[in-house]
């Protein structure tokens, strides 16, 4: 069992160990959770080295059981497969990193500490597995695990309306799982030739498979006599619906602002940072990777929806009075650009969308970390009740400004490099939509700077007794994320290298 | 259909008439205790039918278990509970109408099914008892082919016995 396997499993082991620890071993819970997350991160870094310049996908498979060959020309092997390729490597690293930082950010006096670290480690294991999964079965299992781990984090440890938020979250994402399952199973059948108009036609050499790499190699090239376009059409519709919910895209987004508003800071970092990126990942993996013709066919729809999301998110963010809701809508706005990039379906657009996923993940987590730290001192996330914080906490305010600037796409931050690639792609394929999307670029400055001006500038509105500037654990999280934003902004080739391979694979240019 | 009025046929008609009459009485009596008596009639009628069909062992078992044990058990149960109980006047509630219609429809459906099938006539050549007396043949089959189900059924009876005792036992003080 290789590296990707342990990458997903080490936080899981940590979760189990936390459960096995005696009561009231407060320090031990955190230590174990941190250790599990740190091992995962270390493995992710090791994977980068192994991935190297040659871009070898790292692959491990663990056979579980076999469905005997009753149909579709062979046995169906149910495996736990983990593969790190160009697309999953940066995302899994981001997930592992945010998992570690979320554990760091858990406040000292966290109530019900044991349960907390158990669910959190479970969530980290699940999101790691989501991005490391090498077959559709493992992927779906990981998505479900992530769903219920985050549900419990939300349900047990959220704000006053946490139950409502948790159930809304659960029902929405449960619904998306239904469509996802339908799509994944459908792809399995379609690739194996079960939907051939003239009866079953075994199409996969070696029998049906869940393996993503094999499906992606096979699925786009199946003849219409094996997999009719109407089947592809329905599969893609199911994927799109699943993606819209997972990624919180208008009009299926309303779980995200509420969940973000009610969840605590570490959970928000994971929720906003990685969990909402699952949707775009699905669209890239199963949409663009297996049904490229449909992405083309739906291109205009996706582009228009992207622009709508971009503007809708930005306008809604402008009207928000709570930082967490604002960040949530901002992330919706970012995801609109991701959609535009994928819709463009060219090198720049796809790579831009991937960059945007990573960048938005980091920046959202950073914004949550900073606003969470501020709220811990001021006691509120409400923008109208804040003001002049730069005087009392210059460092945190500076980081807040930085995060906002990154989020609005200032050059030399990761946000910019994502934006420009997306727009290069967008202007090639959908110039009109891209022109409208420019309005979003302006609006992002409006809502973020408006909130910044109200929060950190101006006269101080509250008494600032005993407010310490950032504490060590906050420093760690904030500085690491800030550094990453700058690193990607200044040296984009870092993640552009692995992404580039996947982009070329998706577009079928070279190896 | 041409009906041949053989003695067997006449016996069958008489028996079925008795069974159905008892069954209808069962449902139309008001007092519970009479109903128990009517069911005894049904059981005995069925036993006669089995014997007519050449299943002597089953017929005898039916008399022993149903007409004997079960009917008496029912009597006891009635006596131990509310033995004065009368079934109240039947009111034609919606549910009752639906039940009646459903049962009638079921009978109709079953009738149509039964009628539409070409049933095989009894095959004169085969002897289902393989030359043995019926009881011997059944015994052989039970202990050869159906050994394990047979044992399982005995287990079931034990469990039912113990269970019935525990359930029916009055609770001790303080339990």
């Amino acid at each position, binding site marked *: 069992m290789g590296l990707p396997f342990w990458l997903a499993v080490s936080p899981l082991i940590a979760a189990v160990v936390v459960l096995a620890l005696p009561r009231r071993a407060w320090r031990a819970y955190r230590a174990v959770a941190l250790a599990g997350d740190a091992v995962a991160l270390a493995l992710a870094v090791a994977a980068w080295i192994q991935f190297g310049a040659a871009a070898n996908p790292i692959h491990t498979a663990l056979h579980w059981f076999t469905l005997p060959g009753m149909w579709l020309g062979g046995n169906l092997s149910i495996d736990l497969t983990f593969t790190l390729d160009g697309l999953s490597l940066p995302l899994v690293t981001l997930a592992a990193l945010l998992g570690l930082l979320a554990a760091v950010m858990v406040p000292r006096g966290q109530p019900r500490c044991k349960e907390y670290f158990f669910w959190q480690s479970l969530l980290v294991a699940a999101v790691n597995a989501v991005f490391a999964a090498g077959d559709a079965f493992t992927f779906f299992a990981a998505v479900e695990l992530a769903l219920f781990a985050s549900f419990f984090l939300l349900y047990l440890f959220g704000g006053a309306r946490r139950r409502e938020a948790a159930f*809304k979250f659960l029902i929405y994402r449960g619904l998306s799982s239904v469509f996802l399952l339908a799509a994944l199973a459908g792809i399995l059948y379609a690739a194996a030739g079960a939907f051939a108009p003239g009866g079953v036609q075994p199409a996969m050499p070696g029998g049906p498979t869940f393996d993503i790499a094999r499906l992606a190699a096979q699925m786009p090239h199946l003849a219409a006599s094996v997999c009719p376009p109407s089947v592809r059409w329905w599969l893609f519709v199911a994927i799109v619906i699943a993606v819209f919910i997972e990624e919180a895209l208008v*009009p299926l*987004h*309303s779980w995200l*602002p509420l969940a973000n508003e009610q969840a605590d800071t570490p959970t928000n970092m994971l929720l906003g940072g990685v969990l909402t990126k699952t949707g775009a990942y699905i669209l890239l993996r199963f949409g663009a990777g297996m049904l490229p013709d449909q992405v083309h066919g739906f291109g205009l729809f996706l582009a228009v929806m992207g622009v709508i999301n971009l503007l*809708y998110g930005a*306008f*809604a963010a*402008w*009207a928000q009075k709570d930082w967490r809701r604002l960040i949530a809508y901002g992330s919706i706005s970012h995801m609109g650009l991701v959609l535009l990039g994928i819709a463009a379906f060219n*090198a720049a657009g796809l*790579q831009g969308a991937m960059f945007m996923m990573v960048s938005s993940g980091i920046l959202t987590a950073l914004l949550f970390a900073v606003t969470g730290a501020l709220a811990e001192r001021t006691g509120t996330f409400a923008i109208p009740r804040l003001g*002049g914080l*730069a*005087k009392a906490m210059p460092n945190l305010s500076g980081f807040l400004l930085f995060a906002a*600037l990154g989020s609005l796409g*200032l*050059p*030399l931050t990761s946000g910019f*490099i994502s934006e*420009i690639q997306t*727009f*290069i792609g967008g*202007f090639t394929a959908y*110039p009109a939509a891209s*022109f409208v999307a*420019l*309005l979003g*670029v*302006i*609006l992002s*400055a*409006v*809502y973020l*700077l408006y909130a910044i*001006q109200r929060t*950190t*500038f*101006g*006269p*101080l509105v509250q008494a600032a007794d005993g407010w310490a500037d950032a504490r060590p654990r906050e420093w760690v999280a904030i500085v690491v994320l800030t550094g990453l934003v700058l690193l990607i902004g200044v040296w*984009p*080739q870092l993640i*552009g*290298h692995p992404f*580039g391979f996947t*982009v070329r694979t998706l*577009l079928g*240019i070279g190896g | 259909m041409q009906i041949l009025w053989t003695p067997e046929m006449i016996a069958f008609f008489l028996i079925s008439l008795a069974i159905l009459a008892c069954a209808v009485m069962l449902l139309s009596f008001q007092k519970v205790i009479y109903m128990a008596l009517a069911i005894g009639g049904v059981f005995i009628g069925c036993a006669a039918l089995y014997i007519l069909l050449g299943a002597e062992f089953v017929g005898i078992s039916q008399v022993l278990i149903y007409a004997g044990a079960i009917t008496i058990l029912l009597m006891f149960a009635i006596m131990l509970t509310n033995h004065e109980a009368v079934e109240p006047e039947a009111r034609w509630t919606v549910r009752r109408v*639906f*039940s009646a*219609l*459903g*049962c009638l*429809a*079921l009978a109709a*459906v079953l009738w*149509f*099914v039964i009628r*539409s099938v070409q049933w095989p006539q009894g095959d004169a050549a085969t002897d289902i008892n393989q030359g043995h007396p019926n009881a011997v043949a059944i015994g052989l089959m039970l202990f050869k082919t159906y050994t394990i189900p047979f044992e399982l059924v005995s287990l079931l009876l034990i469990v039912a016995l113990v269970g019935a005792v525990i359930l029916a036992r009055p609770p001790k003080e303080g339990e």
Partner: protein
Amino acid sequence: MAAHAWLVPLLPLVAYVFLLVLGRRAPEWLVAGVSTALTFISFLLSLGVFRDAGQPATYTFPWLHVGSYTLEAGIQVTRLNALMLVVVSAVSTLVLLFSKGYMHGDERFAVFYQYLNLFVFSMLALVIAPNLLQLYIFWEMVGLCSYLLVGFWFFKPEAALAAKKSFIVTRIGDAGLFAGIIMLFLASGSFDVTTVLQAAANHQLHLGWISNDGLLVLTAILVFVGAVGKSAQFPLHVWLPDAMEGPTPVSALIHAATMVAAGVYLVARMYPLFAASQAALTTVAWIGGFTALLAALIALTQRDIKRVIAYSTISQLGYMMLGLGVGAYAAGVFHLFTHAFFKALLFLAAGSLIHALGTQDLFEMGGLRRKMPVTFWTFLAGALSLSGIFPFAGFWSKDDILAGALRHGHPALYAIGLVTAFCTAYYIFRAFFLAFAGPARDAEKHARAHEGGWVMTVPLVILGILATIAGFFNSPLNGYGLGKFLTPDLSLYQTGLGGYMAPERADVTVMLISVLVGLAGIALAAALYARPAAVDRIASEGKAEDIGPLYRLSYRKFYFDEIYYAVVVAPGKFIAAVVDGFDRYVVDGLVHLVRRIVYLAGLCLKYTQTGQVQAYGTVAAVALVVIIAIAMIRAGGVF
């Protein structure tokens, strides 16, 4: 020397990092000393680069691969770039020195210098960017520095609002530039400026969804939109006056001499693109001319000294655009060059006044001639230069533009320019007389007034000298040397750009007219504000009594802020509120409706759970019968 041009922006970056490491509590002398010294070395290096500037020299390395294309980063030295390097580093050095005195005692002194150094780095890097992407990156970076410095006194609500406004308004322009750059990239296959301009000049830009000529005009206009935002041209001029909430050295460096001039620089840098599309060039000229006049009219009545100079900056930037737009390329760049010096001078002099008096209101000044002689004389030099009086720097460059407008057949723009020139002379001398002439209107402040230390006066004097003599770089006296110097930049591109070059000979009549108009403006200002008899009238104006509707129109800046609020901001907020309401009540309302329907269904269906086993049995039996019956009917042959 060109190969070492990368050192020029690097030194301020070194200073920035050094100050960052030193922290907030570093001693003032060290902070200011290191910054000034390193920037001064940069200035010397730029002089070297300028001396050796010849054919464009480019040095790059790969930055990011996008598909099959590689983005590069690096530097490029052209003649225009070299000139800009000199201007920016020169003004920066002086402003950094001046700030030592002006910001003395501020608790975030070190932070101020950090920001300034970051700005100088970004501005220098912007100037020598070899490709449009890098140019855009630093274009945004200078915008960021401007935001930080305008909001430097963030605890003042006006400063916080002004910072936000400046960033957002310029961002509108930046979005245009962003689109323009991307379309140029897609059309030419490269971000590289030289490649793009060659393609544009040869009419080889091509995109699938637009005609080639349309593309030229569209991209040129989009690039110009960026310039409009940065250079505060109509209709995006509203941010610059508000940006005066920042410390005055910032206004001098960023909002007068360098950053706002970046828009003009951009148009000059991309000149072959504009030249290839006449419509775009005409747009540039008219926007410039209109802005020049509009801003001058607003400046006539302002009472805040920094706002007068700020509107003057907008107006002069309009002049530069006008010059570039009518085809007087060299004149436009030349005006940028001279303007950097005399406008920085005016701002620093104003800063000196503000520092001495603690007020920006002209009507609280007066009679400072004796108290602050250095400021008085240097301000005078700057004002004369701005008014275009022979032989000050502004005369040569402004005259060059006006002559260019006539020469290239734009008499209407020439007339606008003349009117603007008259207004310019009037408002700057109005400010001058209000500040220095007459009696002191605020005795207490007047008593406290004093000249700043050498760190403040030396930059003033140096800039004063430059504002006086800088015009000779491109005068008939040296055969329009600057124009000749810049010409090879454009000759690379094979279009009829020769006509945009320097004139062959001077037009004395035009010069005479300009000077006379300028003098007339000064005379009017003197008549209204310098005569002893005007004291009462000034007092009543100072109390804002009996001002006519035209005066009010000018004083309220033609109500642009109010109009924009009503037309852009308020609808934006309204849409935001509508979207938010839509989200809360319609989207979420639908979700809740679905929830309620399901809940209601449950509420109704629960009554079927009577607990009566026979009822369940009935339903099951009936359903079973129905199912069997259906199965029978489908099978057929039963009934």
